[in-house]
């Protein structure tokens, strides 16, 4: 199994609900708490496993806003695991999830230095590195209903922009989506073989305006009156 996420940049509305749901679930999860620093102060900061950033693609007038959630890509060739001197960082053989053993981590931050995606954040209070677990304490929990055995970010997404599944299974929803929609990996040139895949926005055809009828004389007068008279 190679578990991971597909993130649809066409439907993501950038609401940060995935980031908040992640924080809420994981702060009481296996690698919690996700410590906050001065949460009610002037400069609130803290540990997050998932962050959403916003970009503008293209030049005016052909621009598009793209919302980009970024969390651990659960790379096939994970550099964070390679550089870890203590063996605290490891990649599970059975499902490819990259985890940190909090009891072994010495907090040297080298894995965060090796990660180009900013997926790892040091908890200054616990002194250990923390990261996305792909909600390992949800997806294998038999006490949950089968439809709830998904990462918190996937379940909460109101736009259904996030999908969870097995990339080794060619018929899984994530494999089909990334195949059919031309899914992309981020920074493929570094060779870390990230699992998470991003679906590019669909190119929608322009809405034709040739057949739009002009308004009647009466409606033009009404429009003018409505504009001219202040309420």
């Amino acid at each position, binding site marked *: 199994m190679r578990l991971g996420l597909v993130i649809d940049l066409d439907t993501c509305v950038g609401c*940060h609900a995935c*980031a908040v749901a992640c924080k809420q679930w994981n702060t009481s999860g296996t690698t919690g708490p996700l410590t906050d620093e001065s949460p009610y102060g*002037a*400069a*609130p*900061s803290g*540990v*997050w496993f998932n*962050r*959403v*950033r*916003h*970009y*503008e*693609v*293209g*030049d005016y007038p052909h621009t598009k*806003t*793209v919302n*980009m959630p970024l969390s651990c890509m659960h790379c096939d060739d994970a*550099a964070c*695991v*390679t*550089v*870890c*001197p*203590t*063996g*605290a960082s490891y990649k599970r053989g059975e499902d490819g999830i990259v985890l940190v053993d909090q*009891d*072994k*981590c*010495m*907090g*040297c*931050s*080298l894995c*965060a*230095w*090796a*990660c*180009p*995606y*900013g997926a790892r*954040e*040091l908890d*200054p209070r*616990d*002194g*250990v590195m923390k990261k996305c677990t792909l909600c390992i304490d949800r997806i294998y929990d038999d006490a949950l209903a089968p439809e709830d055995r998904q990462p918190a970010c996937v379940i909460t997404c109101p736009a259904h922009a996030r999908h969870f599944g097995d990339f080794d299974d060619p018929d899984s929803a994530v494999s089909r989506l990334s195949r059919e929609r031309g899914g*992309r*990996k*981020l*920074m*493929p*040139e*570094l*060779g870390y073989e990230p699992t998470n895949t*991003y679906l*590019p926005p669909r190119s929608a055809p322009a809405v034709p305006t040739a057949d739009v009828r002009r308004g009647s004389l009466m409606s033009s007068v009404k429009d003018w009156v409505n504009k001219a008279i202040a309420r």
Partner: protein
Amino acid sequence: MHPALSVILFTVLSGAGYGLFSLVTLLHLTGLYPAPGPTELMTQLGLALALITFGLFSSTLHLHNPKNAWRAVMRVRTSWLSREAVCALSFYPFALIYLWQIPRAGVEVGPLMVVVGGMALFLALLTVFTTGMIYASLKTIRQWNTALTPANYLLLGLALGATALAAVHAGFGGRSEGLVLLALGLVLLAGVMKGLYYLWIREVTGPSLNTATGFTQARVRLLDQGHTAGTFLTREFGFDPGARRIFRVRLGVFGFGFLLPLLLMGMVLAGGSSLWLALALVSALAGIGLERWLFFAEARHGVMLYHGQRT
């Protein structure tokens, strides 16, 4: 990258210590050390061990969970940091036996000293190389991901070690042109290598915001990084001193690190007082300290692309 004082102290001081130890051992074993006395050799090697130990202790200060530091020897197969830890630890027994042998055997080199000294020499240089490789192996930081990084670490450590060697030798009243020439040559070589490094990193390579977001056919700009205050990522990787400050510090690196020591050593060779060597050592340590600060400060981590930083 955020320049952490503990890591700067560690790499500069232990680099100098390993450089000093390996040069003293090499000269002693080959019989090239000018008029060696047991006290002088002990002082040289003791100073080297003190620098190394202080540096290694300082390196543990940047760990956020030092009680697990002993685990750092567990992943020698993949991690350069683990390899560094193993090399640094296995250096000690050989170095201490070597040091212990000097008052017993005098300055004569016996077979035990050749074996132990050879191992200490090899492990000292290997430790400095592994330190360089920790940085050179990170593909996320283009300024570090080059063979010039370990080359710089090795040469700068040897240059500092040679300067210290000549200064301590002068402190014992010795006046050896050979040692000063060795220091002068190594400082010059290290300076040329550092110059090459600064030329090399001018070329922008590696990922861009286009490959980082997957939009490779259009311009991509950051609209909003999604948080109002700093995060671990911006604190650790977002340090940017600016081009003017980088230029000024580079002047300091070349001035204090290479030019002033070269000038002072030239004065000593021309017949000046040997005391200038002490000033050369202080100047070189300050200059290489600036060099190490800059090594971190001017490195750009790939994740900052996502935060709107270019190159």
